[in-house]
């Protein structure tokens, strides 16, 4: 697996480069780094994958996997009956949506921690891929219904904005305690049942 290529200077001068001159690249005429690689750079083929893969036998993750999934795909044509639903009739139609962006639920802890190697946040998808508003919209509508119910029962005085923020969580906790539900501070199927909100 170890590959050694011996370059003879006169051969290089005569234009004979080995097929894979990964280790030795003569001079700076291949190093024009303005976006597009030069032809020589392309032919140089100093690809990280092969180098990483053959460095040791312990970590050859790059071309390691057989990658045939044999797993049966992610078919979702069959919609089985939804079960996150509550039994009774919907009691509330939400007002016109005024919602803009999904809010992070947790604010980062105040104390600055040493920067962990955390990948950057997922950014919004670029134009060519369709965005996925459907679920966001669905969750927001349910959250608004819950907020309205919490308001009606006197637990919540905040905005009906479809965002489960700190005050909404406090209200949920209080409501769950009073109704002897499991106390989570989140919207659970039990909460929806109690308020008669149909989720699906």
């Amino acid at each position: 697996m170890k590959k050694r290529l011996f370059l003879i200077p006169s051969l290089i001068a005569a234009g004979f480069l080995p097929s894979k001159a990964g280790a030795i690249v003569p001079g700076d005429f291949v190093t024009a780094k303005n976006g597009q690689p030069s032809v020589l750079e392309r032919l140089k083929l100093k690809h990280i994958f092969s180098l990483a893969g053959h460095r040791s036998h312990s970590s050859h993750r790059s071309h390691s996997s057989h990658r045939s999934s044999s797993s049966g795909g992610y078919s979702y044509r069959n919609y089985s009956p939804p079960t996150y639903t509550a039994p009774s009739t919907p009691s509330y139609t939400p007002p016109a949506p005024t919602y803009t962006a999904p809010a992070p639920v947790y604010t980062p802890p105040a104390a600055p921690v040493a920067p962990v190697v955390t990948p950057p946040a997922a950014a919004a998808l670029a134009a060519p891929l369709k965005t996925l508003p459907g679920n966001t919209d669905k969750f927001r509508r349910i959250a608004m219904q819950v907020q309205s119910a919490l308001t009606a029962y006197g637990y919540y005085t905040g905005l009906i904005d479809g965002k489960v923020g700190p005050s909404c969580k406090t209200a949920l906790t209080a409501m769950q305690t009073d109704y002897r539900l499991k106390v989570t501070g989140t919207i659970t199927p039990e909460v929806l049942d109690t308020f008669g909100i149909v989720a699906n």
Partner: protein
Amino acid sequence: MIDLRLKIDPLPIVEPLVIRLRNEPQNYQTEHDAVLVDTEGTRLEYDYNGFSFGLHRQDDENFDGDVILALPGQRIAHRLIRSKSPHNTFLVTEQCDQLCVMCSQPPKKHHADLFSQFAVAASLAPLNATIGISGGEPLLHKERLFSMVETVASTRPDIRFHILSNGQHFVTEDIARLVAMGTERILWGIPIYAADRLTHDRIVGKDGAFQNLQRGLGILIKAGSSIELRTVVMQQNKDRLSDLANFLFTRLSCIDVWAIMQMERIGYGRMNWATSFHDSSTDFTQIAKAIDMSAARGISIALYNFPLCSVPPQYREFALSTISDWKQKYLDICERCGSRAACGGFFEWYSHKEGFAGLGAL
């Protein structure tokens, strides 16, 4: 075997949803993160944007950093990314335009487009992850696939892809885009089974496939792409391996690695096992010759999916541990083997009765 599906409590969703599971709130919290709030026996409860999300685990598994895909109305979620595993692969389509005799994932007609979800999932992967893209033939949906790679590349330049493709669908116009996507971002895993048209076409079940493949490889080479050529060795092509070694050296020497692979006994591979499986533990001559020729000429060569004890000692350095962790198993004879840590073992669906005859603990 690791089950790549998880039982969940259904979510009120109308389209497929990608969620990253976290044990603790993070500094970088995204709208896709669900944070563990409660553990009750085997049921884990997460807070997903204020909604409760229940997940059921089998053992004491830790899902921190894992990315899952939930589908409307389903109680099963797919584990797209396991944060501790190097073997994360997206099955982007089950459609294919070839019918290979050893195919482990036989094609289906239906295609569900989940590229948007895959783009989100990839952008939630751990730092410096390599994500496999498999099928079916991913390039049947080339525009969507390229968009996905470009989207991820723009937000997560650290993520790399290993894309398995039959190499049939590249056109000259793709070169600029391939270059722009970054030749080091993608490793193309392309199968070639023989140096002659007839043998290759017969194995992949498609007339003209060999010729298309040569054109496709030419385009990838022009773009300076990273290429891993993959040859499953079978009864059909074992005697032609040295021809293929010659062909690769004279025509395709700028590839990054040539992988000679063992069969996977599932799908068509299982159906055609008796007529295709080549027991390389009893006859390694052709493979040895191909390795000798290629190594001497500076072509990187590797053996994938070969148990170490099936390979003669002097060639074991080429045998990489390649079987994905979730479908990997070891046999009883492996119990007292000293090389187990370096060995990829066997596919979950390997049957020793019909398998390698010449194995033994090292």
